[in-house]
Protein backbone atom coordinates (compact mmCIF):
# COMPACT_ATOMS: atom_id res chain seq x y z
CA UNK A 1 0.00 0.00 0.00
CA UNK A 2 1.26 3.44 -0.87
CA UNK A 3 2.12 5.75 1.99
CA UNK A 4 -0.13 8.76 2.52
CA UNK A 5 1.42 12.18 2.53
CA UNK A 6 -0.40 15.16 4.02
CA UNK A 7 1.37 18.52 4.01
CA UNK A 8 -0.31 21.76 4.96
CA UNK A 9 0.61 25.37 5.53
CA UNK A 10 -1.82 26.71 8.16
CA UNK A 11 -2.53 30.43 8.02
CA UNK A 12 -4.68 30.26 11.16
CA UNK A 13 -4.32 28.37 14.47
CA UNK A 14 -4.76 24.60 14.29
CA UNK A 15 -5.52 22.02 16.97
CA UNK A 16 -2.73 19.42 17.20
CA UNK A 17 -4.85 16.94 19.18
CA UNK A 18 -7.52 16.88 16.49
CA UNK A 19 -4.94 16.59 13.74
CA UNK A 20 -3.15 13.75 15.46
CA UNK A 21 -6.33 11.86 16.29
CA UNK A 22 -7.42 12.03 12.64
CA UNK A 23 -3.97 10.96 11.43
CA UNK A 24 -3.85 8.01 13.84
CA UNK A 25 -7.37 6.93 12.91
CA UNK A 26 -6.35 6.98 9.23
CA UNK A 27 -3.53 4.49 9.91
CA UNK A 28 -4.97 1.59 11.91
CA UNK A 29 -2.48 -0.77 10.30
CA UNK A 30 0.51 1.15 11.67
CA UNK A 31 1.96 -0.20 14.88
CA UNK A 32 3.33 3.15 15.94
CA UNK A 33 2.91 6.87 15.47
CA UNK A 34 5.65 9.32 16.44
CA UNK A 35 4.76 12.98 16.60
CA UNK A 36 6.57 16.23 17.26
CA UNK A 37 4.69 19.34 18.29
CA UNK A 38 6.51 22.64 18.40
CA UNK A 39 4.77 25.49 20.17
CA UNK A 40 5.55 29.11 20.99
CA UNK A 41 7.30 28.95 24.35
CA UNK A 42 5.37 30.67 27.12
CA UNK A 43 8.55 31.98 28.71
CA UNK A 44 7.18 35.32 29.88
CA UNK A 45 9.55 37.18 27.52
CA UNK A 46 8.32 36.53 23.99
CA UNK A 47 4.97 38.26 23.52
CA UNK A 48 4.34 37.09 19.96
CA UNK A 49 6.03 35.16 17.19
CA UNK A 50 5.60 35.83 13.49
CA UNK A 51 6.54 33.46 10.72
CA UNK A 52 6.56 34.94 7.24
CA UNK A 53 6.29 32.57 4.30
CA UNK A 54 6.76 33.04 0.57
CA UNK A 55 3.91 31.31 -1.21
CA UNK A 56 5.76 30.14 -4.34
CA UNK A 57 8.42 28.34 -2.29
CA UNK A 58 7.28 27.54 1.26
CA UNK A 59 4.59 24.90 0.69
CA UNK A 60 6.34 23.37 -2.37
CA UNK A 61 9.50 23.08 -0.24
CA UNK A 62 7.58 21.30 2.52
CA UNK A 63 6.06 18.95 -0.03
CA UNK A 64 9.48 18.11 -1.45
CA UNK A 65 10.72 17.38 2.06
CA UNK A 66 7.73 15.12 2.66
CA UNK A 67 8.45 13.13 -0.50
CA UNK A 68 12.11 12.79 0.51
CA UNK A 69 11.09 11.44 3.92
CA UNK A 70 8.73 8.89 2.36
CA UNK A 71 11.52 7.78 0.04
CA UNK A 72 13.92 7.26 2.94
CA UNK A 73 11.86 5.32 5.51
CA UNK A 74 9.17 2.67 5.35
CA UNK A 75 6.18 4.70 6.48
CA UNK A 76 2.44 4.22 6.29
CA UNK A 77 1.89 7.95 6.40
CA UNK A 78 3.44 11.32 7.09
CA UNK A 79 1.72 14.50 8.26
CA UNK A 80 3.30 17.95 8.35
CA UNK A 81 1.26 20.99 9.42
CA UNK A 82 3.17 24.27 9.73
CA UNK A 83 1.78 27.61 10.82
CA UNK A 84 2.58 30.93 9.18
CA UNK A 85 1.46 34.30 10.50
CA UNK A 86 1.42 35.75 13.99
CA UNK A 87 1.19 33.43 16.98
CA UNK A 88 0.70 33.95 20.72
CA UNK A 89 2.67 32.09 23.43
CA UNK A 90 1.43 28.51 23.79
CA UNK A 91 0.13 28.34 20.22
CA UNK A 92 1.28 25.46 18.01
CA UNK A 93 3.86 26.20 15.31
CA UNK A 94 4.47 22.85 13.73
CA UNK A 95 3.17 19.29 13.97
CA UNK A 96 4.97 16.39 12.34
CA UNK A 97 3.61 12.86 12.64
CA UNK A 98 4.96 9.65 11.13
CA UNK A 99 3.05 6.36 11.15
CA UNK A 100 4.99 3.17 10.53
CA UNK A 101 4.90 -0.54 11.04
CA UNK A 102 8.24 -0.31 12.84
CA UNK A 103 8.88 2.17 15.63
CA UNK A 104 12.45 2.93 14.55
CA UNK A 105 11.30 4.21 11.12
CA UNK A 106 8.69 6.49 12.66
CA UNK A 107 11.16 8.04 15.11
CA UNK A 108 13.84 8.62 12.47
CA UNK A 109 11.40 10.06 9.93
CA UNK A 110 9.90 12.58 12.37
CA UNK A 111 13.32 13.56 13.67
CA UNK A 112 14.72 14.02 10.14
CA UNK A 113 11.69 16.03 9.02
CA UNK A 114 12.01 18.40 11.97
CA UNK A 115 15.74 18.93 11.48
CA UNK A 116 15.14 19.86 7.85
CA UNK A 117 12.10 22.01 8.53
CA UNK A 118 14.14 23.92 11.12
CA UNK A 119 17.18 24.48 8.98
CA UNK A 120 15.99 24.90 5.44
CA UNK A 121 12.31 25.61 5.14
CA UNK A 122 11.26 28.95 3.68
CA UNK A 123 10.22 30.85 6.79
CA UNK A 124 11.42 34.12 8.25
CA UNK A 125 10.83 34.52 11.94
CA UNK A 126 10.58 37.48 14.27
CA UNK A 127 9.74 37.76 17.94
CA UNK A 128 8.06 40.56 19.83
CA UNK A 129 9.78 41.33 23.11
CA UNK A 130 8.92 44.38 25.25
CA UNK A 131 6.75 45.66 22.44
CA UNK A 132 9.51 45.52 19.81
CA UNK A 133 9.84 43.08 16.91
CA UNK A 134 13.24 41.38 16.44
CA UNK A 135 14.20 39.25 13.45
CA UNK A 136 15.64 35.84 14.35
CA UNK A 137 18.85 34.86 12.61
CA UNK A 138 19.53 31.26 11.58
CA UNK A 139 20.90 29.21 14.47
CA UNK A 140 24.13 27.27 14.16
CA UNK A 141 22.47 24.46 16.13
CA UNK A 142 19.91 24.04 13.36
CA UNK A 143 22.64 23.51 10.76
CA UNK A 144 24.39 21.05 13.10
CA UNK A 145 21.13 19.12 13.60
CA UNK A 146 20.64 18.80 9.87
CA UNK A 147 24.26 17.75 9.31
CA UNK A 148 23.64 14.63 11.45
CA UNK A 149 21.85 13.11 8.46
CA UNK A 150 24.45 13.70 5.76
Amino acid at each position, binding site marked *: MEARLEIRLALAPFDPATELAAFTAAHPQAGGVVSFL*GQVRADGVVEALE*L*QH*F*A*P*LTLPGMEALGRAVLASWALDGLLIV*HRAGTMAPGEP*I*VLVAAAARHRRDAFAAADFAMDH*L*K*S*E*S*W*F*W*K*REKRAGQWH*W*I*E*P*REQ*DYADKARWS
Partner: protein
Amino acid sequence: MKARLVFLGKLADLAGAGEIEVASGPLEAVLATLSPSLAVELLGERVRMALNGEITADRAVVLGAGDELAFLPPVSGG
Protein backbone atom coordinates in the same frame (compact mmCIF):
# COMPACT_ATOMS: atom_id res chain seq x y z
CA MET B 1 6.01 48.58 -18.10
CA LYS B 2 6.28 47.99 -14.35
CA ALA B 3 7.92 45.13 -12.48
CA ARG B 4 7.75 44.29 -8.77
CA LEU B 5 10.42 43.73 -6.15
CA VAL B 6 9.36 41.65 -3.13
CA PHE B 7 11.27 41.75 0.15
CA LEU B 8 11.11 38.98 2.75
CA GLY B 9 12.04 39.06 6.42
CA LYS B 10 14.25 41.87 7.59
CA LEU B 11 14.76 43.10 4.03
CA ALA B 12 11.16 44.37 4.13
CA ASP B 13 12.05 46.47 7.18
CA LEU B 14 15.08 47.90 5.38
CA ALA B 15 13.04 48.61 2.26
CA GLY B 16 10.21 50.12 4.27
CA ALA B 17 7.69 47.90 2.45
CA GLY B 18 7.05 44.25 1.61
CA GLU B 19 7.05 45.07 -2.10
CA ILE B 20 7.56 48.02 -4.42
CA GLU B 21 6.87 48.74 -8.06
CA VAL B 22 9.87 49.55 -10.23
CA ALA B 23 10.44 50.35 -13.89
CA SER B 24 11.34 47.21 -15.82
CA GLY B 25 14.89 46.80 -17.10
CA PRO B 26 18.21 45.21 -16.09
CA LEU B 27 18.55 44.44 -12.37
CA GLU B 28 21.59 46.69 -12.10
CA ALA B 29 19.62 49.67 -13.40
CA VAL B 30 16.67 48.84 -11.11
CA LEU B 31 18.88 48.67 -8.03
CA ALA B 32 20.48 52.00 -8.93
CA THR B 33 17.11 53.66 -8.30
CA LEU B 34 17.01 52.37 -4.69
CA SER B 35 18.86 53.70 -1.68
CA PRO B 36 22.49 52.54 -1.84
CA SER B 37 22.30 50.91 1.63
CA LEU B 38 19.30 48.83 0.59
CA ALA B 39 20.95 47.92 -2.74
CA VAL B 40 24.03 46.67 -0.90
CA GLU B 41 21.91 44.47 1.38
CA LEU B 42 19.97 43.04 -1.57
CA LEU B 43 23.21 42.04 -3.25
CA GLY B 44 24.52 40.36 -0.08
CA GLU B 45 26.11 36.96 -0.55
CA ARG B 46 23.54 35.19 1.59
CA VAL B 47 20.52 36.77 -0.10
CA ARG B 48 18.84 34.55 -2.66
CA MET B 49 16.49 35.68 -5.41
CA ALA B 50 13.33 34.18 -6.90
CA LEU B 51 12.10 35.36 -10.31
CA ASN B 52 8.36 34.76 -10.61
CA GLY B 53 8.58 32.17 -7.85
CA GLU B 54 11.62 30.29 -9.19
CA ILE B 55 15.01 30.53 -7.53
CA THR B 56 17.57 32.23 -9.77
CA ALA B 57 21.21 33.08 -9.26
CA ASP B 58 21.32 35.35 -12.31
CA ARG B 59 22.35 38.78 -11.09
CA ALA B 60 22.25 40.04 -14.68
CA VAL B 61 18.51 39.30 -14.99
CA VAL B 62 16.46 41.78 -17.03
CA LEU B 63 13.04 42.45 -15.50
CA GLY B 64 10.19 42.58 -17.99
CA ALA B 65 6.74 44.04 -17.48
CA GLY B 66 4.82 42.11 -14.79
CA ASP B 67 7.88 40.23 -13.53
CA GLU B 68 8.24 39.68 -9.79
CA LEU B 69 11.72 39.46 -8.29
CA ALA B 70 11.81 38.39 -4.63
CA PHE B 71 14.79 38.88 -2.33
CA LEU B 72 15.12 36.12 0.27
CA PRO B 73 17.45 36.60 3.24
CA PRO B 74 18.70 33.50 5.09
CA VAL B 75 15.75 31.53 6.45
CA SER B 76 15.40 31.43 10.20
CA GLY B 77 13.71 28.05 10.22
CA GLY B 78 10.28 26.82 11.12
